[in-house]
């Protein structure tokens, strides 16, 4: 059964439709890319799924259950993790503490008032596991803002993994990275995908990378879903070419 279904979703800001009657579905264990020129509505697509905004029209289903209209924490707790295009961390906390918040939330420990958080072995183990997964094991004690940009993006992903999501949404995981960092991140994403069996939906500007790793591609333009298909289909789709050329012109 499909893990995510977007049904006739429209998201308007004033008169402008950031998403316009979008329909699509995601199957389990896909590595699905959402592409489109700047302002196409990719981030809005994620925001609507995770409850940052409630869609103006249409419905969102996760594992067959309707989730639009639920609060953000409720949606996340159904098993969705997300990272952000613009780095969105707890800037003054350490790397480990950043991940720990998510782990504590997932293990339902956050209402414990009299337990010393530094003496919770299970939590520490899990934090360690996640940091290792995103290759940040050595930076555990570093304040988040002092990490390199690339590492901050990895930390983002680590935080999104803390609730053992069935669906992971990554918004431009390689934005602002150099070529080498980008390559490493792609490896990381593939690695996580293989190891955890999570379904991943990600947005990306770098089309080579997209065509390289994704199992399927969605193309948005001005809020409309203009193509949905395999890498090969999308590569040869004239409308997609036009959309991208149009942007360059």
């Amino acid at each position, binding site marked *: 059964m499909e893990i995510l279904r977007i049904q006739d979703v429209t998201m308007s800001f004033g008169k402008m439709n950031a998403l316009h009657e979008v329909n699509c579905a995601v199957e389990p264990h896909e590595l699905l890319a959402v592409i489109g020129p700047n302002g196409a509505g990719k981030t809005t697509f994620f925001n609507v799924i995770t409850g940052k905004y409630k869609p103006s029209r249409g419905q969102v289903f996760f594992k067959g259950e309707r989730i639009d209209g639920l609060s953000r*924490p409720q949606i996340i707790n159904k098993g969705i993790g997300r990272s952000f295009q613009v780095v969105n961390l*707890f800037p003054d*906390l350490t790397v480990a503490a950043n991940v720990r918040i998510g782990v504590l*939330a997932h293990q339902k420990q*956050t209402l414990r008032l009299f337990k010393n958080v530094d003496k919770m072995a299970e*939590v520490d183990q899990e934090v360690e596991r996640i940091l290792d997964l995103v290759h940040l094991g050595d930076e555990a004690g570093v*304040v988040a803002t002092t990490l390199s940009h690339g590492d901050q993006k990895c930390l983002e992903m680590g935080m999104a993994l803390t609730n053992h999501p069935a669906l992971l949404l990554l918004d431009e995981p390689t934005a602002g990275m150099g070529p080498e960092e980008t390559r490493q991140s792609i490896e990381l994403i593939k690695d996580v995908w293989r190891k955890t069996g999570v379904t991943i939906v990600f947005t990306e500007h770098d089309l080579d990378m997209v065509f390289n790793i994704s199992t399927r591609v969605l193309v948005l333009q001005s809020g409309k879903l203009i193509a949905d298909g395999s890498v090969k289909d999308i590569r040869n789709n004239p409308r997609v070419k036009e959309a991208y050329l149009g942007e360059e012109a």
Partner: protein
Amino acid sequence: MAYVINGLTFAMMLFVLSAGLNIILGFLGVLNFAHGALFILGAYVTYAVTQTLGDFWLGLLIAPLVVGLFGMLIEFVFLRPLYKRHHVYTILLTFGLILVIYDIIKIIWGSDVKTVVTPPLLSGSFTLFGEIIPVASVFIILVGVLTAGGLWFIFKKTTFGKILTAISLDREIANALGFNVARRGTLAFGLGALLAGLAGVLGSLKLSIAAGVDAEFLIYSFAIVVIGGVGSFRGTLLASLIVGEMSVLGGVFLPELSMSLIFVLLVVFLTLYPRGMFGREIEQMHVPVVPYLGNVATAFQRLSATQLSLLSSLLVVALLVVAPLALPKYWTYLLAEIMVFALFAISFNVLFGFTGMLSFGQASIFGAGAYTISLMLIHVTGNWWLAFAASLVISTGVAVIIGLMSIHRSEIYFGMLTMAFAMLFYSIIYKWNSLTGGADGLSGIPSPVLKFGFTEVEILTPLANYYFILVVVAICYFILRTIMNSPFGQVLLAIRENPTRTEFLGLPVKKYKFIAFVIAGVFTGVAGALFAPFAGTIDALASHWSKSGEPIFMSLIGGISTLIGPGVGTLFYYVLHSYIVSITEYWQLVMGSILITVVMLFPMGITGYAKKFILSFKSS
């Protein structure tokens, strides 16, 4: 009818004042607590001009200009560097300015009350429809109407006004379009201050001028701006009429309730219509309250680093145990008071420094604790345990109510809502004479009796009080310390740093904020319950919203990023205060300047810098 005219006069004066406040809040996002002080400054300048040049009309011309220029100076020197920080810093800065302005006034004009001689043209009155109407009232109403017209013209017809509006709607775009946002900010603040000055001129016709009378005007202005709506002069005008008439007519026909009614209206608007009648919501971004620390102290923000180690904590307690043996008697008394207010400040800072919630309502909770225990001890029982339990229940109840109603709003709106509650609470305490003793408060509170099984101890002597307070405060401190070390405490830090991200980790932020508010409330209530029997008296001022400013001040001086910081700040404040008072009568000037300096240059506070120093020392 005469009352209606009085109300209208008052309303127009409030309108001129509030329009200025509205410009400053709407354009710069600054909640200008010094607006009342600027108002009274305007009145004093009018007085001075009338006195020296013998002409009120020159005062009408000069006072607004002087105050306006002063406002521009303030904006340029003090406020401009603070816009990138959390709004608490601009608020605190304007708090500091109040103190400084009051003492400048005192230095120039002394502290006795002044009155402006009404010019012949405006003195006297005439009769209309059988009612006696003072000419001065007509003049004030006229100036109010002209001001409204002038503002309408400036903001609708001139490019300056249009650009200003555009900027206030979206700073970044305006910046990108190449408008000089910063310079226009100075002008906007100047215009706001000018209006405060003009209101001061009008006020000088009706009031006896003294620093402090402006406090009431300030809160009415806040109410008006919120009810009318930020960014809307139409709203401000209408709300001024409502508040002005309510306060004058209400004062005549419903003297017990009029003040409370205005604040009820304010609470209703803030909860249900935060845009007010015609306004818009203030644009605000989340900015963490603790300024970024840089990488000197890498480990600084590890949770344990926000606290003294267990060993040092015990050491502090041990020092406090022996202190009365070494210090003069007066200091025993003072230290006991310091501990009470340290607890007040520390529990405030659990909200502020650890969760990022700036509450102005803490004085109400403190007051609820203090009044309840006093009433219990006076009327019901001498047994401390019983009285204390009742006081805890009531103060926690007040915290629950304020919390439930306020946590739905964030940032500056949360601050304004808690402030509205504080005013409401104060107005109730103040007017409910039969229960609370009104302005005089309660005195002769009997000293409590502690019952342990068969023995009883009466807490009578200063020394007994001291140790009693020490025990309770120490217990509270260790409980708070444990809570802040817990997973829950960790979530609070997360909320402080980035509430949105916290939500996207699956944590319902409002729920945690509410729990934090109640926890802070419990300990604030304890502080109140300790204070009243110790002091022997309690009056309405203890729950005045401006009292909520004190823990903010102490937290900032001591350092908001550590648990003990506000305690250190309280100690520092008291010691410094008693020293300054002993050497100069202008202690407000000194304290205000210190506050301003700390806000601008040392936002990490004493313990923050100490910690930074120790950590960089360790790491090198």
